[in-house]
């Protein structure tokens, strides 16, 4: 692995102290602490608080916010900001994330490190602007055309909204991929305690600029971990990047061989490094009959159902995904061999993550989906019933 250069957060962006705020504001503070100095956005409920706070904070932190004419513009403007040398994000929800998909593909293809914050609401179409959903979980992985990989994180609390968006920026730098920060409306609008540490306690990954002179530098030549070194505009490299299939020089090459090399590299750089990217939390999984696997707000609602099942004497464990993509398939497979069932509550109907669990367990244990169309969270009874079905 190429050396990851950590530094501590720039104190100008860190609002050290104990706060009481919602997940959207916390995501903004986390982005500032994580070094984000460029944000392009377009208003959309339930995400707007992130850019509202950012636009108020950034003039005195040292950075820029621009409200673009639409989400398509935002999602490429931010990439101009990245190639000019900044850590950058855009923030949106349902209809906006759909519009941004072409530029998720561009970011993947140009290996532009950047963060897409998606505060999920109910869909499809305009759906439920003010109410929660978790139905963009597969879209964030597959939504743009072609073969590529992304990283996606899903916070469950306001504190995590702060903590893990810093992680999201760091992962974007390490692997040069678009990183999705998948909140849901509940986490975005829930107000709770947030502790922001001192700047020198926050680890931030520095961008890995090449030290090679321009005549030796190849913009897309990967290191052994498949991640190439970056340059920025204005440094005399006079480099070229294109959204066409390209070679190590960044020049377009329109044939099957170049396609094979580029696409496999984009996919393998995440596959090969997945074990370093996975983040999940487990509780009482040893000896459990049933494990409830969830993420975001649904993982918190499941806690009540787990309590109810425990009161009945059932041994219930818990696995909560923090990084959703790449999916921790080996660990889920391992758990499947130890339990009767894995119960997967989530705010979508088709089991967007449950499907992935089913794929991983390959029939080793029962997988009980707990679908919900969104608009509110699950009634814990529904999840309790699913647990009972799992132990039967």
């Amino acid at each position, binding site marked *: 692995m190429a050396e990851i250069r950590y530094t501590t957060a720039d104190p*100008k962006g860190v609002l050290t102290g104990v706060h009481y705020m919602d997940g959207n504001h916390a995501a903004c503070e986390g982005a500032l602490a994580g070094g984000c100095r*460029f944000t*392009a956005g377009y208003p959309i409920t339930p995400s707007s608080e992130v850019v509202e706070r950012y636009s108020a904070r950034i*003039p*005195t*932190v*040292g*950075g*820029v916010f*621009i409200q*673009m*004419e*639409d989400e*398509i*513009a*935002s999602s*490429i*403007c*931010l*990439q*101009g*900001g*990245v*190639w*000019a*040398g*900044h850590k*950058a994000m855009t923030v949106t929800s349902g209809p906006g994330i759909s519009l941004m998909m*072409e*530029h998720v593909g*561009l970011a993947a293809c140009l290996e532009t490190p950047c963060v897409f914050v998606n505060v999920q609401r109910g869909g499809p179409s305009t759906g439920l602007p003010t109410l929660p959903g978790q139905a963009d979980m597969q879209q964030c992985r597959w939504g743009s055309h072609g073969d590529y990989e992304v990283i996606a994180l899903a916070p469950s609390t306001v504190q995590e909204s702060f903590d893990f968006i810093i992680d999201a920026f760091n992962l974007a730098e390490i692997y040069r991929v678009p990183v999705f920060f998948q909140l849901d409306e509940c986490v975005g609008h829930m107000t709770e305690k947030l502790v922001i540490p001192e700047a020198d306690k926050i680890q931030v990954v520095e961008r890995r600029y090449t030290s090679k002179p321009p005549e030796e530098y190849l913009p897309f030549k990967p290191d052994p971990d498949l991640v190439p070194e970056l340059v*920025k*505009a*204005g*440094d*005399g*490299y*006079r*480099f*070229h*990047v*294109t*959204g*066409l299939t390209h070679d190590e020089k960044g*020049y*377009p090459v329109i044939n099957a061989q170049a396609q094979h090399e580029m696409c496999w590299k984009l996919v393998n750089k995440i596959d090969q490094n997945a074990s370093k990217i996975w983040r999940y939390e487990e509780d009482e999984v040893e000896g459990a009959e049933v494990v409830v696997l969830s993420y975001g707000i649904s993982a918190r609602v499941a806690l009540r159902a787990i309590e109810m099942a425990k009161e009945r004497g059932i041994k219930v464990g818990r696995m909560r995904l923090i990084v959703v993509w790449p999916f921790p398939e080996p660990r889920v497979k391992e758990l499947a061999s130890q339990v009767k069932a894995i119960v997967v509550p989530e705010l979508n109907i088709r089991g967007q993550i449950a499907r992935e669990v089913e794929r991983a367990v390959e029939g080793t244990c029962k997988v009980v989906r707990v679908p919900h169309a969104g608009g509110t969270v699950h009634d814990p009874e529904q999840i309790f019933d699913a647990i009972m079905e799992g132990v039967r």
Partner: protein
Amino acid sequence: MSIVKNVQENPVEEFLRTDRLPHVWCSGCGIGTTVNCFARAVRKCGIPLEKLAVVSGIGCTGRVAGYLKLDSFHTTHGRAIPFATGLKLGNPELSVVVYSGDGDIAAIGGNHLINAARRNVDITVIMINNFTYAMTGGQVTPTAPLDSINTTAPYGAYEMPFNLPHLVASCGAVYVARWTAYHVVQLTKAMVEAMNKKGFSFIEIVSPCPTIFLRRNRLGDAVDELKFFKERSVIKHGADTSEVGWNETRPKEIIIGKFVDIEKPDYVEAMNVHLSNKLGEKYIWWGKKDG
């Protein structure tokens, strides 16, 4: 095998990615001519090469970025302007040029064009107008003249075309010009002026597409088209842009020249001045204070 002797270096070779030549453009296409003008303008404009970036969208003209030996970005269809906006805002010391076609800039990218002009983002947009989507085989564009034949308007176009100089001028562009691929000297000069202009500058270049547009409309070859440009063009600096529209395939008069050249604070300057007035010393000035 013949041995070519006395091969002279192309006078603009230092600005080109010669390892990518030959280019994709057809013989007689005007895009290459304009790139030659651009390279000469780059030499004259005084901007250091390492501080000049070019951004293209998709299409025949979208390939320009790939042949210029500058920091060059070949982005998505219609979105060169918002990428360029990000690049310029990210590093105000860069000079950023968008080089793309009429379909890319005016159709799919139209919303970005008008908003960038309104914001007065300090970029230069060079738009080649060949009246058609050439790379995809000649479909109708929002600049296609009335009754011109296109693959998706096989009985002739019947939508009113854009008057783009008028559009961008009305949105607030500080520099607006139109030249043709015949007017290489004036075009080169306009490119120098546009790149050195603070704010949103726009040059429409009317350019021959012999393979698709001229052939399908039986308008002759590239030389015929250049003769047409030469004979029908009338230079009217400062012309009322509402009167420069190009609506017929063969207008009686092609109005060219520098239509708009005004002074106005650009986006970054307006942001810096406004926020420092509101926030005082707390505001952290973005970019160099003198620039």
